[in-house]
């Protein structure tokens, strides 16, 4: 049912907030020049607010609504207990500038999380400050910059493969580095000789997503890292796809200097419709001096916030990052422990099951075993006048969230399916069945696909019009 915009509702004088009675005298008036009128907000009753957001929520699809095979996003089940834990009054009401003696519980949790992230990557040090994956990438590039600065160097280029995550070039650019595009091979992975051809002493290094956005493991990683290191460069690993390889790879042995995590992907903190996330980084001993301050450090039996790291890139967040997200990741890792390896195994098993089950209906971008996601193209559909977008929209009508579409760019009309380990085989079978049905419909009744979705609150939206005449603020 239709739900108005907030400011189309309400009446002056209503309020959905319990205003405390004042127990103090009124302060003297503000000088006229400073005094304003207050914001032009609608006044609503509590029930109006409750119904508004209840209805809005009903137009949304989340992991709890059904399978959400959005590639590269790791939309796994988010344990309900975590919400309860994050709301514990001690955590939720903690002021970030509390004296250390009054905040040991928070500092200890952060320290332990750092230790666990180190154990998962095999690297030497960690910072929890980055507030999202792209913030972690930015942190990584700043670490690169600081590392070279400390050596009196300024490197202005960085190698970024076509199978890397979309944010990588922008993160590098913010640090004044120009991306050098690197093409993946016909097998979908990177080759050492191509890296060697690009890498030089003006190049800061490389940013590799591994497994890459085609769902393939970069088997030449170690060789590539060696080439980069030989030229004095550094290796950044985008760890957004960590869900595929926990317990199987050792980032340090691979030659990684910096890796970031997406806690909201791998460690199942909910995505919240676009955040908040958390993007901690792990680094080698060599890069540790450059990590952001403050750092959480153990001193005797207690924990302190240490800022005295003269080579540090500095502060990256007003306080210590998204603590409320960090604690959910702590809870997730503590709930699974070594079973995180099983998480990766089943994530990869699920992806290969889908790959194998759909490979006769949709064109695989690359043959062979994949990691935690598999990528199809719409090559075989074009004959029917049907595109990846139509498949995606039709899936909505069949009760599924669509896969990631048109990314990675390296595959035309790509559909990137990441089922995650929390989906049961029955659910995978239902998804496979829906995809097969759509394949048949593409042939027999393409119009059904072109007109979909038909069961949603709104149908296909005019995105071009939205961009051409932007209306970004309502009710003016």
């Amino acid at each position, binding site marked *: 049912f239709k739900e108005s915009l907030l400011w189309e509702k309400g009446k*002056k004088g209503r*309020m*959905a*907030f319990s205003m405390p009675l004042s127990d103090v005298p009124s*302060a003297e008036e503000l000088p006229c020049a400073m005094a304003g009128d207050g914001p032009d*907000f609608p*006044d*609503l009753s*509590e029930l109006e*607010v*409750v119904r508004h*957001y209840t209805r809005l929520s*009903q*137009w*949304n699809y989340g*992991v709890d609504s059904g399978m*959400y095979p*959005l590639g590269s996003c790791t939309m796994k089940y988010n344990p309900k207990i975590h919400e309860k*834990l994050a709301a514990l009054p001690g955590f939720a009401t*903690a*002021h970030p*500038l*509390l*004296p250390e003696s*009054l905040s040991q519980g928070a500092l200890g949790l952060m320290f332990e999380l750092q230790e666990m992230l180190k154990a998962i990557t095999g690297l030497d040090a960690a910072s929890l400050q980055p*507030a*999202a994956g*792209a913030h972690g990438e930015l942190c990584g*590039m700043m670490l690169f910059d600081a590392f070279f600065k400390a050596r009196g160097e300024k490197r202005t280029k960085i190698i970024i493969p076509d199978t890397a995550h979309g944010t990588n*070039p*922008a993160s590098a650019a*913010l*640090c004044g580095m120009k991306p050098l595009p690197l093409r993946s091979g016909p097998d979908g992975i990177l080759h050492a000789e191509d890296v060697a051809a690009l890498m030089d002493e003006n190049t800061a290094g490389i940013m590799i997503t591994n497994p890459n956005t085609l769902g393939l493991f970069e*088997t030449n990683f170690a060789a590539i890292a060696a080439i980069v290191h030989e030229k004095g460069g550094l290796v950044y690993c985008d760890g957004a796809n960590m869900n595929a390889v926990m317990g199987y*790879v*050792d980032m340090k*042995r691979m030659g990684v200097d910096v890796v970031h995590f*997406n806690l909201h992907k791998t460690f199942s903190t909910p995505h919240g*419709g*676009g955040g*908040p996330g958390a993007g901690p980084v792990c680094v080698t001993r060599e890069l540790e001096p450059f990590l*952001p301050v403050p750092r959480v450090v153990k001193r005797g039996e207690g924990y302190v916030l240490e800022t005295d790291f003269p080579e540090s890139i*500095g*502060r990256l*967040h007003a306080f210590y990052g*998204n*603590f*409320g997200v960090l604690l959910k990741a702590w809870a997730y890792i*503590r709930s699974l422990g070594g079973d995180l390896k099983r998480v990766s195994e089943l994530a990869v098993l699920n992806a*290969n*099951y889908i790959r*194998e089950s759909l490979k006769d209906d949709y064109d695989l971008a690359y043959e062979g075993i994949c990691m935690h996601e598999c990528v199809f193209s719409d090559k075989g559909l074009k004959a029917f006048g049907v595109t990846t977008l139509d498949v995606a929209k039709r899936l909505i009508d069949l009760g599924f969230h669509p896969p990631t579409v048109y990314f990675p760019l390296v595959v035309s009309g790509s559909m990137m399916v990441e089922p995650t380990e*929390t989906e049961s*085989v029955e659910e995978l079978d239902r998804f496979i069945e829906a995809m097969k049905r759509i394949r048949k419909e593409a042939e027999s009744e393409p119009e059904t696909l072109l007109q979909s979705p038909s069961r949603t609150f*709104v149908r296909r939206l005019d*995105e071009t019009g*939205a*961009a051409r005449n*932007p209306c*970004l603020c309502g009710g003016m």
Partner: protein
Amino acid sequence: MRYLPHTEEDVAAMLERIGVSSVEDLFAGIPESCRSLRSMDLPRPLSEWDLIARMESMAASISGGASHSVFLGAGSYSHYIPALIPQLLGRSEFTTAYTPYQPEVSQGTLQAIFEYQTLTARLLGMDVANASMYDGASALAEALLMAIRLGKGRRKVALSSAIHPHYRQVVATYFSPTEFEVIELPYDPETGVTDLSTLADIGDLAAIALQSPNFFGCIEDLQRAADLAHGEKALLVACFSEPLAFGLIKNPGIQGADIVCGEGQSLGIPQSFGGPGLGMFACRMAHVRNLPGRVVGQTKDMDGKRGFVLTLSTREQHIRREKATSNICSNQGLCATASAMYMACLGATGFRKLAALNRDKAAYLKKRLETAGFTPLFKSPVFNEFCLKAPEGFSKIRKKLMEKGMVAGLGLGEFYPELEGTFLFCATETASAASMDRLADAIREEI
């Protein structure tokens, strides 16, 4: 494991379909050079019940704002949060959704963010707001980078030293790898507001940035700063850490700010030891194509029905790659939704009343502390924070009070060496007169 649905039979059947004989075979492609040689050194799994017990004891060890005796602000504020906010925000359709790439199944998130953008623009007096940044500090850094992009070759930005020190540190971090320069503007030691007298001498300025109320709690004259900035053909970036102030004081937009950004934690978001908070970011429509971050726009569907989509993506990194207006991808979407719920709960009427109550509480605390031997540091009017010079011997007393769970302000010496012995106090609507009396009395007794 309750999160993993696979039974042994499931795994066997799936392996057969795939045509491999074991799960390890799926990982055969990982070369030895990348492999982990030993199992991860992680503690044993905890049951849900042991996890709860562990975290409850950690949480209980933290001295929370619930005691109403933490008189700290400085970028994180204790405000009441109506119970309906966590309850509605916690609906899994909101929490377990991703960025709304597929608008047909994401209208809830999209409309909520569109409303957030609108309420934010109204609050700040601007034309348009984005869908959120990480926090107030990174929002300021992004605002200055945006001003540089708009400044067409100008290479400097000037920051008031009365901006939150952490925000200035984050700006420094963001600017360090770039070729751009950050200059600090002094504060007036008498009034506590920014001294703009040196501004004209700098030159090559893309922007100047002020915070109001500033770190000292003092209300700045943004109009004057805007006039001066515009006189230099620079932009005024106005930032804030306590948006509730705009219930009483003039908003930055009306005073001529070009970009307004800051921290929205006060608006219904738990303090959570500093995060997740909410980076709010707004600008004039003329500059919208340089706005960093995501934005939601209104449009129509095939049937002409109103709907919402992510838009202006040509500014964004997945299209523009290194030429994007920022690298931000995940933002603080759920926090933005929380703050919209909060603004909706209060409404114009409530927002103004609550702001007044905050100012009254702070005035009361200030008066009470003055009776306990504190003296005012700055002359400017304040909102819910203020600086005082402490009486002799206060540092020791402050430690004693801490043991009783009272946190008596924030020492400014750490951030401003010249202000050693002065303290920043904060009182919001959650501070009862009784708790403030208790603090003042405890201090008076000890002196």
